[in-house]
């Protein structure tokens, strides 16, 4: 089932040096590999080194340590050859907003040296795929954020890439627009496109990724399938309790021992237990009356909290 290795990183690191400032390590020696046909994610908060890693994979940022091979090639020596086989959806859309929707795909296709009839045929197909066919003759400027994102995705597919790289594909989109993007990405996955994405949304990572790495401060904190990570680093359920803020610390002390682990967040307590309802009964049994109580499944957010002691989105 696992396909050939398309990307292989060993001890990959990136340090930025700026005159008059101490060097800044964005990526501090990471190992990972991506196989053909899988959806691979980098989950982590802003500043974790995800985008820098993506730029290195996109052959637009030379690494300063370790090794990186893409299709078995060296990204800095064979950048153009590798990029010819990649699709990139950057964090910022970088569309030509004054041009027509259709022309955006056209100028991009020409960068890949595609013949005009091929570009025309693919443009039609791709605009249909991202549900923008009716806007083909419109300018980009008035499109909504979600439409621009979808157009960027269509544009990145013009060369029929073997790997599609998406940096924060749904950041800044409203929930409805996010779901449309997810749906399209899911279809690409179904068709066997290898996808690599970064996100700081745990639901995005859970929904789309076959396998992911949790990144924090330039390092990989954990790696695995979403459900594996949850099994390894969290309990099955989580009990979320809210108390009046001044009583929270006391409540945490009183609840100690009920769950495997208790996390005190600024606004709530998290009790990690395999049976959330039983934990809630035990809490009440100790005379605690939370304002609200919620039992839910563990998510990647909890994995991240366990691994780093911090939440994903601050």
């Amino acid at each position, binding site marked *: 089932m696992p396909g050939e290795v398309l990307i292989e990183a060993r001890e990959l690191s990136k340090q930025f040096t700026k005159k008059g400032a101490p060097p800044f390590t964005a990526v501090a020696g990471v190992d990972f590999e991506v196989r053909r046909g899988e959806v691979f994610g980098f989950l982590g908060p802003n500043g974790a080194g995800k985008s820098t890693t993506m730029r290195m994979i996109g052959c637009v940022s030379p690494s300063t340590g370790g090794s990186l091979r893409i299709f078995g090639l060296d990204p800095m020596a064979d950048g*153009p050859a590798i990029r010819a086989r990649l*699709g990139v959806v950057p964090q910022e859309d970088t*569309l030509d907003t004054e041009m027509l929707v259709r022309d955006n795909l056209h100028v991009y296709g020409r960068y890949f040296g595609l013949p005009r009839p091929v570009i025309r045929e693919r443009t039609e197909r791709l605009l249909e795929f991202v549900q923008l066919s009716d806007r083909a003759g419109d300018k980009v400027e008035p499109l909504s954020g979600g439409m621009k994102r979808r157009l960027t995705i269509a544009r990145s597919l013009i060369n029929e890439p073997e790997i599609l790289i998406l940096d924060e594909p749904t950041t800044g989109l409203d929930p409805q627009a996010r779901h449309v993007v997810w749906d399209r990405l899911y279809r690409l996955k179904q068709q066997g496109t290898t996808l690599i994405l970064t996100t700081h949304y745990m639901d995005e990572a859970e929904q789309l990724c076959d396998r992911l790495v949790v990144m924090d401060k330039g390092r990989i904190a954990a790696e695995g399938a979403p459900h594996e990570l949850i099994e390894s680093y969290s309990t099955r359920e989580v009990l979320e309790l809210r108390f009046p803020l001044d009583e929270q610390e006391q409540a945490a002390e009183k609840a100690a021992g009920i769950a495997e682990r208790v996390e005190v967040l600024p606004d709530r307590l998290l009790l990690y237990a395999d049976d959330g309802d039983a934990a809630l009964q035990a809490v009440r049994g100790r005379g605690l009356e939370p304002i609200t109580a919620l039992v839910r499944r563990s998510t990647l957010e909890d994995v991240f909290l366990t691994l780093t002691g911090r939440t994903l989105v601050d």
Partner: protein
Amino acid sequence: MTAIDSPNAAVPAAHSIDAPIPGALRLSYRQFRYWVTYTRRTWRGGLLSAILGPALYLTAMGIGLGTLVDRGSGLPGGVRYLDFVAPGVLAANGMQNAFGLSTYSVLGSVKWFGNYWAAVNTPQRPEDVVTGHAALSLVWISGVTGIFFAFMAGFGTLHSPLGILAWPASVLTGAAFMLPIMSYVITLDSDQPLNTLFRFVMTPLFLFSGTFFPWQQLPGWAHPIAYATPLWHGVELCRSLTLGTATWAGSLVHVAYLLAFALGGYAVARITYRRRLYR
């Protein structure tokens, strides 16, 4: 391979594994084509000012101011003021357009529109980006200086068959400014320094490089400064060509000086573009 609901998946991928990556010339040409498409929606305004500008300049300066100058003590050698000022403004026109094309459009490409970033996510390299963008700018400069040159000729300011060479000389003058400025602007993060560039570099050059009055009128200490500016060389070259006073030696020095700026700027731009776009 990404096949999007493709009924006829016979479309070849951009490059199969063995397909060679095209050479620098072809890649730069693709970037040039991008700018052709881009310019298609902006050329009208540019062309209008390219036509109106010279017509107004030549009428106001050459005929209005020129009548006063020629009736007064006149220029040394009895040269008609219009004949004197027109080739100067031609060279300055090359420079001004170079400033316009190498500042906001370069910074915008990396800062506001992101088209440079989009380009380097394809087989384009920073070197192709700078070459293709510069090539389109040179074509544009050739066009607007060509229009000015046609007006000049219409006003009867050409006094030598070699005068036609003043046109390419003004394009070269533009290149001598455009490429070094591109190499600088790509390093910027805000447009603040651009105002300084226009106010304290372009405007003084325009006024004091012998465009409007003989540079010999400047105080002696200022002469070396004039010689050092590419615009002075451009103005002198264009003027000597249209007045028919050009010498081989002088012209070669001017051309060499301008070429050095253009090629030096290009070499530096290839480095600074790479530094910015491959971070």
